[in-house]
């Protein structure tokens, strides 16, 4: 009985059966609890603040961790008295189009580098990796002058066209790794059966690469949702702003901070990516670690 229990623990927990429970509490659960508290507290604080009436926000008495009189005032102000809904719509539109466009370009590029192996494909693959490492903060000034000269300054098109610069390298790099894991014998069979390269890509490789496509798509979507510096630089009129830029530039009037509305805006703006992430956690993690591991 006792040995069976030990054996059972041994299977599930490696050599953990050697460590006593109180010891595990101190060495694992306690530090983990502290980590979780610190990592999640800002979200709790955001949520609580967004439901607090102004009087409660600005009073120093009472218990600030709790809601005495929850209110939806801040959400009401945000949704009906600011342009928040249109920022949200812009962000969705820009993120979805740039993600989709980048995915199409990346699938073609990754397939071509990894499978067609044209002359110089290795160097192109390396160049893609280097492009992944170029941060937007050194590109925004020249891009701003370009966007201005082309005449798409202050338009959503400026962002839709520039976001792929950081999405394509990432997606291509990720998909290259994914395509590599698909056995090329499948493609050889299809070639013998007379399929063209285009048919192979559409009917053999893409269906097998769906998990990779989801990983790349989710990650790209969150990256473009997160983008700030291009949106801050290229967009000036309120109705074209994205959520991060709009919240920062429009909800602060001079020195008056509408904390409740700011928090509501931050929370609502985080919600779409958080929901999407919660549905595709495994794909997201695979995308993130895959891009680093390759």
């Amino acid at each position: 009985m006792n040995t069976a229990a030990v054996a059972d623990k041994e299977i599930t927990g490696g050599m953990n059966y050697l460590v006593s429970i109180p010891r595990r509490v101190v060495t694992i659960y306690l530090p983990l609890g502290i980590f979780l508290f610190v990592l999640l507290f800002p979200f709790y604080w955001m949520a609580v603040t967004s439901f607090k009436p102004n009087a409660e926000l600005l009073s120093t008495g009472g218990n600030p961790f709790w809601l005495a009189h929850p209110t939806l005032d801040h959400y009401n102000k945000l949704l009906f008295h600011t342009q928040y809904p249109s920022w949200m719509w812009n962000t969705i539109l820009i993120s979805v189009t740039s993600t989709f466009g980048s995915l199409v370009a990346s699938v073609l590029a990754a397939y071509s580098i990894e499978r067609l192996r044209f002359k110089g494909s290795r160097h192109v693959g390396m160049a893609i990796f280097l492009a992944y490492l170029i941060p937007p903060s050194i590109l925004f000034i020249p891009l701003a002058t370009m966007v201005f000269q082309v005449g798409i300054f202050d338009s959503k098109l400026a962002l839709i066209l520039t976001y792929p610069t950081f999405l394509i390298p990432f997606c291509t790099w990720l998909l290259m790794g994914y395509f590599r894991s698909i056995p090329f014998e499948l493609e050889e069979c299809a070639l013998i059966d007379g399929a063209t390269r285009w048919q192979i890509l559409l009917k053999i490789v893409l269906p097998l690469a769906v998990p990779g496509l989801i990983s790349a798509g989710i990650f790209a979507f969150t990256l473009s949702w997160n983008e700030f510096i291009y949106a801050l630089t290229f967009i000036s009129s309120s109705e074209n702003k994205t959520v991060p830029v709009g919240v920062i530039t429009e909800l602060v009037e001079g020195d008056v901070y509408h904390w409740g509305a700011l928090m509501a805006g931050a929370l609502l703006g985080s919600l779409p990516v958080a929901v999407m992430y919660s549905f595709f956690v495994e794909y997201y993690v695979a995308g993130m670690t895959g891009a680093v591991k390759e």
Partner: protein
Amino acid sequence: MNVPQTEFIPAARPTVATPSFLARLFDNRHFLGLLFMLPAALLLLVFMTYPLGLGVFLGFTDAKVGRPGEWIGIENYEFLVTDSVFRLSVWNTFLYTFIASAAKFVLGLYLALLLNEHIPFKAFIRAIVLLPFIVPTVLSAIAFWWIYDAQFSIVSWVLVKLGVIDTYINFLGEPVLARMSVIIANIWRGVPFIAICLLAGLQTISPSLYEAAAIDGANPFQKFWHVTLPMLSPIIAVVMTFSVLFTFTDFQLIWVLTRGGPINATHLMATLSFQRAIPGGALGEGAAIATAMIPFLLAAILFSYFGLQRRRWQQGTKD
């Protein structure tokens, strides 16, 4: 009897249609490869390679917003070298990158080791740990802004109630405190990324190595030092390069929390470049500051490159 001649005439050979020129062209992998590369390559060349060159060029001009600017050689750089704000921003950038990256590494590794243990609800915990990383930085920075508020900071409130301090802390108003505050916010956001990536690395280490170490009488620290760390070092090299790169060029967090203040104490090169170029209108000078970041980025990229080489070598694969 006439034998029908037709029997002896070999049936018309199935004509092998010679593929048209176009069909052959589209079967040529070199041609097709370049064709498939076209959309991505075009976009990256126009919106990445060209601006990169243009940025370096702008750094040598006195371009202003709405004025093309003329070639002035290294005048921008000569000015920047003497500019105390720029020198401070370089120092800040290094300080910020070094402290934040070191802390993120230590805490991230610790969190990864904790998550690698057998714990209930492991998948769920791993999922929520990553939340700070996926939420848009600007929006979580707003939460930190409120947490760091001079009058209503929750941290100050708790510390006052506990009797540790008497007056509320002006987190973002004092140079040293402001630096600490932005670094802490950066660490908060970066730890999950590093932890989850290192966790993926930890999970590839074979348990038999630990068992062998245990049989040899290794204590937990020795197991960590002689098994975990060496096995993890290639992935550490890559993850930390990414982390250093993104911390070095950070913009969002600083811009939301302090905009470089108080008295430029938290200005990083990226924020200074933005401030001079866009609100300030000095595009040439801003571009020069941005260009000044490139050598450091190159150093980090080379480091990453050799990290990858070493990984290949360790795995024994030839490619």
